[in-house]
């Protein structure tokens, strides 16, 4: 049986189907959570942002129009919610390597690839927030360039530039690992 589209599920959810919402939630819970977690680098703040974002989605479901993909709508809300969080909270402090490692799985269990992933995560944390968000929307949410620009409220060229710089720095981090 063909999998139901996000837009169909939203329509059913708006019609009162809790099962439709559960399916939608199952699809987006992990990528949305990782978006917040890797954007702010702090599990507690990520939890707050994640829950607040879903509450906004639940309240705003009647305003969703199926002219655009649900994924873009969802991450647009997530972006706005994160920006509100940044404005309210203190500026995100850059975490040092030890703090980053504390949010990761047990370092003893690291393999070479896991170590590379950890290095990538550290490089991600070092990116400026807007570049970090651009790469998260690309690699975590799977949005294309135009949608990233729309979601973050910037022009296409700006989004492209952010993404290019972020990718370059992450690649460099991976290359540095190889040279070590």
């Amino acid at each position: 049986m063909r999998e139901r589209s996000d837009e169909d599920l939203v329509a059913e959810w708006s019609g009162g189907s809790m099962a439709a919402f559960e399916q939608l939630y199952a699809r987006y819970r992990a990528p949305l959570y990782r978006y917040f977690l890797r954007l702010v680098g702090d599990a507690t703040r990520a939890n707050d942002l994640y829950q607040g974002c879903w509450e906004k989605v639940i309240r705003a479901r009647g305003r969703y129009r199926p002219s655009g993909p649900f994924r873009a709508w969802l991450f647009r809300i997530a972006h706005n919610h994160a920006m509100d969080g940044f404005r309210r909270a203190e500026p995100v402090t850059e975490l040092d390597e030890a703090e980053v490692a504390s949010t990761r799985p047990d370092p003893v269990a690291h393999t070479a690839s896991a170590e590379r992933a950890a290095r990538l995560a550290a490089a991600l944390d070092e990116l400026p927030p807007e570049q970090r968000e651009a790469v998260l929307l690309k690699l975590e949410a799977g949005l294309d360039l135009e949608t990233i620009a729309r979601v973050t409220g910037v022009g296409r060229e700006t989004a492209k530039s952010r993404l290019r710089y972020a990718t370059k720095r992450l690649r460099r981090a991976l290359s540095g690992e190889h040279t070590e």
Partner: protein
Amino acid sequence: MIDDDRKNASTANDPEREALEAAWRRMPADEPPELLDQAILNRARRDLETARPRRLRWLGPFATAGVALIALSVWLLSDRGPASPGGDGALRLEPATERALPAAPDALRAREAADAPLREEAAEAQEFRPVTRAKSAAASPAPRPAPSAMLQVAPTEEAAPATDETGDQPPGAAEWVERMLALAAAGRTNELAAELAAFRAAYPDYPLPPALRDD
């Protein structure tokens, strides 16, 4: 699903980008705590539960208006007036009831149809006298009643015995005699003969004056 999309998005990339995305996929697959999942699902469930009555809120006034309308209709249909003053059992319908009749159920319409003859009888009983008077007036436009009209309302068989028993003369007979005397004096013999014949038919025992007797 999103992870699949991420994989698909990487197909056309250069080796460095592929390496980057491969490393990205090997990053810890962090997920929200289960308690957070439950809190959000409960929030969505509560939202749907409160939204459902909100959507049906319009039903309340509609139901109330519907019940009131039905009650009013039933009251109007059952609020027939009392029996007619004459106690003849005829039923009277209020004007509002008659307006409501087309919308009434079949049983009520059948009942109204059965009542119709009674209503007509009652109406006729109420209107009999005036209608008769009107017909009489129309039949006798002349201020003086014609003899033929008098014959219609004066029973010939019953008036004479009454005259015999009481000795009183009907006033019409005396006037009629005077009019015939006037005709005789004027020499209008043809008219006199017709009047006299009519008079004798009406009052066979009335004593005529000598001027009007044949003998």
